């Protein structure tokens, strides 16, 4: 087992302990030690697949990503609401394939999660090997709009990589124009 693997396990155990303490709602020696013990047992019995994180967290990028994410969520929610209340109009949709430029597992997961949480887009299938997301988009009336959406996803990927990506991923993104 390498050192990176140990670091991942420690972070996972710490995260589980924090959840345990939050669930109890009190910060005391008993909850912390008990949480740590349970976290170690859980990680030993149900080992996680290795997701090695090679990137660095950039606070400014995270802030920009989070702000834009909240904005997207609110705007998209009200778009879906207006679609729901447009009686007599059957909304059409599209399934768009988006090939990510930095198809690491972590980046793929985060982009997919962010997309799913925003109403109006839904992941139907993922090609993990080639880094392709198949996204179902609601309220698309023409092929041009579908292309526009693909561009939006690539922009989202850029924001995520700028927030959490590794230097390699950043280089890939700068080389391939959006």
């Amino acid at each position: 087992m390498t050192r990176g693997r140990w670091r991942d396990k420690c972070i996972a155990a710490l995260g589980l302990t924090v959840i345990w303490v939050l669930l109890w709602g009190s910060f005391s020696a008993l909850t912390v030690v008990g949480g740590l013990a349970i976290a170690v047992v859980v990680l030993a019995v149900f080992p996680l697949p290795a997701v090695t994180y090679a990137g660095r967290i950039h606070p400014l990028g995270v802030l920009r990503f989070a702000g834009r994410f909240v904005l997207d969520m609110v705007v998209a929610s009200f778009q879906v609401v207006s679609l729901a209340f447009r009686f007599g109009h059957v909304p059409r949709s599209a399934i768009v394939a988006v090939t990510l430029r930095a198809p690491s597992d972590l980046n793929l997961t985060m982009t997919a999660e962010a997309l799913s949480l925003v109403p109006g887009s839904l992941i139907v299938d993922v090609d993990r090997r080639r880094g392709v997301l198949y996204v179902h988009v609601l309220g698309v009336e023409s092929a041009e709009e579908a292309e526009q959406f693909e561009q939006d996803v690539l922009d989202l990927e850029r924001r995520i990589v700028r927030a959490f990506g590794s230097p390699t991923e950043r280089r890939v993104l700068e080389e391939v124009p959006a």
Partner: protein
Amino acid sequence: MTGVLDVIAWACLVLGSLLSLSAGVALIRFPDLLSRMHAATKPQVLGLLLALIGCALRLREAVDITTLLLVAVFSMATAPVAAHMIGRAAYRAGQARADLLVVDDLAGADDKR
């Protein structure tokens, strides 16, 4: 100060419940399963967050706010996974109506894998 917080809390709750009603309307009106799933993600994410924020603004106790934070994190982490599982099963079962799709990039790609 408490008055202002209360008003914000009420606004969040009303907005959240409005979103849940519109999700219900969309659930009835949208033509196929995948479109309806878009409606389902809406109350689960924004509506739920608004309701939890409203609740946190009213309770104002550290213990309760951490619990609400956990609920928010749990549902935000799990909702996409559930949506993806259902959406994938629906598409593979042929429940995506081709006549409603402007573009379908997956139709050809599925067989190549």
